[in-house]
């Protein structure tokens, strides 16, 4: 057993796949940051709002006014340096920190995609991704290597496989498989997509998409790993992600996944890519190859390996933490995030907050528009931790305005996956008396239905 592990850890492989991954990942990040900036989202999402929803324990991570642009600039430049492989270690660390900081500023914008990028960024801090086809290696041949430990490439593959497989597992529930929800809501509204628009009105298409989506997520790791099915799997990856791009507003993610999946191919493919890239960039391919010679990269310390092992242990366990909570996961959302649960829910909500003076009984309702952007209000109205944080914000705000004995109640309704709306938060609970924690939130009213499955 121990022998197998140590033999595996000593195995080496070509450095090209990881280098290509680094280049494309960096470029995709440059594009993403540029796109985000160009669309005015930095202003709209991180500067305009008066108030930001923090992750538990991360309320010290806040946008810094107009300086927030600097964080994005750092992130963009660091991505470019990662792509170039220039001052790689410091660049990837800066990238990981700045990107993660941005994501932590407001959980309103939480997306699994962003979490995925933070995970990749973290992993890459410990990988020799600049050993080949990089400015670092080019300028300093002592840093150039033709071969790197096999596990360094495998851990990117493992992360990708985890994302897909867990996303597939999460789809094994009665809403997705037996009711074709929420695709049954989303697809008919895409009526204006040529040709497919009419198909989307058919019930069988909703089921076909649901089942094939689940099957795709569960099977694609194996199809990519198995050599004989690899090209077919890659075609599936392209088709699947292009289709999601056509159907849903998911930005850069499909492209990121498509280029990431290239890492599963043999080094031959990557050498071809590097040769083409060299041509485009007008750099001497032969010289790049020759600096690396046939040297093998060796880690000088085991710390990276240990950190990565721990990282994957957390990755494999974290999505199951919902089992520790009672009630319906989709309803209470305790243990929902950071678990690769993608596109599983259509949730709409309405939350009206009531400020009450506990002594006199005087009360009035809050206009959410005064404090939140429409996007924040939308996210807030269906997620208990948002509701609680907002309630506390309101309580402090009105207390500072001179209101006494402030209690905050909420009257809220949520509709989940096409069910009729039902009351969401106990309207008789003073939210000022509740505290955020990892404990179960018993002031969320029970879900009137059952969703079976994982």
């Amino acid at each position, binding site marked *: 057993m121990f022998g197998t592990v140590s033999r595996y850890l000593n195995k080496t492989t070509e450095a090209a796949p990881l280098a290509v991954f680094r280049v494309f990942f960096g470029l995709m990040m440059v594009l993403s940051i540029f796109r985000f900036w160009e*669309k005015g989202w930095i202003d709209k999402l991180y500067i305009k709002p008066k108030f930001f929803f923090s992750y538990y324990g991360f309320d010290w991570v806040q946008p810094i006014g107009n300086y927030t642009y600097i964080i994005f600039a750092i992130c963009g430049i660091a991505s470019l340096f990662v792509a170039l492989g220039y001052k790689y270690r410091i660049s990837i660390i800066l990238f990981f920190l700045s990107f993660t900081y941005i994501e932590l500023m407001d959980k309103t914008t939480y997306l699994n995609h962003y979490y995925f990028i933070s995970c990749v960024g973290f992993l890459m801090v410990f990988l020799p991704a600049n050993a080949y086809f990089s400015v670092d290696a080019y300028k300093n041949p002592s840093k150039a290597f033709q071969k790197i430990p096999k596990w360094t490439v495998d851990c990117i593959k493992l992360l990708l496989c985890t994302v897909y497989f867990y996303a597939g597992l999460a789809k094994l529930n009665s809403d997705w498989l037996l009711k074709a929800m929420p695709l049954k809501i989303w697809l*008919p509204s895409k009526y204006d997509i040529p040709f497919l628009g009419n198909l989307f009105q058919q019930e069988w298409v909703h089921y076909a998409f649901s089942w094939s989506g689940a099957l795709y997520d569960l099977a694609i790791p194996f199809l990519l790993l198995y050599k004989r099915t690899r090209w077919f799997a890659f075609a599936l990856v392209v088709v699947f992600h*292009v289709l999601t791009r056509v159907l849903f507003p998911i930005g850069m993610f499909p492209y990121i996944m498509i280029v990431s999946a290239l890492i599963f191919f043999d080094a031959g493919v990557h050498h071809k890519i590097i040769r083409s890239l060299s041509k485009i960039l007008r750099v001497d391919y032969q010289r790049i190859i020759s600096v690396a010679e046939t040297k093998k990269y060796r880690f000088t310390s085991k710390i990276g390996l240990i950190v990565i092992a721990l990282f994957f242990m957390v990755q494999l366990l974290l999505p199951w933490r919902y089992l520790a909570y009672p009630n319906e996961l989709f309803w209470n959302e305790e243990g929902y995030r950071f678990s690769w649960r993608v596109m599983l829910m259509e949730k709409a909500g309405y939350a009206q907050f009531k400020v009450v003076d506990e002594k006199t009984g005087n009360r009035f309702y809050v206009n959410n528009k005064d404090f939140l952007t429409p996007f924040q209000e939308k996210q807030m109205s269906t997620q208990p931790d948002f509701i609680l944080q907002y309630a506390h914000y309101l309580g402090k705000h009105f207390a500072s305005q001179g209101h006494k004995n402030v209690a905050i109640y909420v009257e809220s309704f949520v509709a989940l996956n096409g069910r009729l709306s039902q009351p969401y938060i106990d309207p008789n609970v003073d939210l000022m008396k509740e505290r955020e924690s990892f404990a179960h939130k018993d002031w969320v009213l029970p879900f009137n239905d059952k969703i079976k499955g994982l």
Partner: protein
Amino acid sequence: MKYWKIASLLLVLGIAIACSSDSDNPEDTTDSFDRGAMLANWADNIIVPAYGSFNADASEMKTATTVFNENPTVENLQALRTAWKKAYVSFQNVSMFEIGKAEDVRFRNRLNIYPTNSSKIEELIANGSYDFSLPSNIDVQGFPALDYLINGLATSDAEIISFYSTHTNAEAYRNYLQLLSETISTLTNQVLTDWTGGYRDTFVANTSASASGSVDKLTNDYILYFEKSLRAGKVGIPAGVFSQQPLPQNVEGFYKKDISKELLLEALDASNDFFIGKNFNGNTNGQSFKSYLDYLNTIKNGGDLSSLINAQFAAAKNKANQLDASFIQQIETDNSKMQDTYDELQRIVILLKVDMVQALDISIDYVDSDGD
């Protein structure tokens, strides 16, 4: 290996064909809900006729104002009041359609911001210069300002007409009154002309499923109107739902008094009729939210949402019918009836904003951010 390659090639090819943006078979739209038909029904059978009718009433009110200004008698004052009331009630049928030109000119804000600012009106009349198009002047114009000038200046009709005849500043009062009526009529005419002059086609053609598509936009407008103007404005705010105390001075038609119930009922009927797609000039129903929901329901086999919404409209109308003609009176004698009406209206808001929006998959925020 070879098979996989061929299979993947076919797969990519198949999807490429499927995704290519040309459909050479336009007939196969038959099995899906025709949003163009719904938009056409909205425009041709509801919105344009409602504006047409309101435009005629606004124009009559303008004429009645001119007649009164030329000859300020009690009789002419009463005729003006009748015309004002008719137009105000008629306005309830178009207030929810804040789209296109109406959105550009901020139609609802120009015509129906209440409570009106009577002291500011007096100031402006004394100064003699005012520009109603300024956003800061929304509370000195429209129906509520007219209400003040024809019902609220004094307690007796004789005293009221004295402002327009014997008052030292009578001409200024007449001018202000005239401009109020004219502005309403002009704005309405602008909106109607825009609809008949080409906007109708733009509106109906914009069947896109995005946030800028006509269905999404008007749905948002409709719900916003129902939540803010109807539920909160007409009932919730005066009943004190949003404040420490009831605010009877905030009722619609404050000076006329016995009109607030009629305005509410008209607005409720108009909203309900729009929901079921009822022809403005008849009793036939066309494509609407109701038929759209029913269509989606045949795919979903879910709860019968359109019936629930209709039943909730009926419940709200039932409560509203029990109110006093004057909401000031109602708030003073038994405000709980106002709050009961508010509660029923609130249930409609939830059904529209949560359930209907989810069923139709309409985004209620205009932020075009990425999703999962």
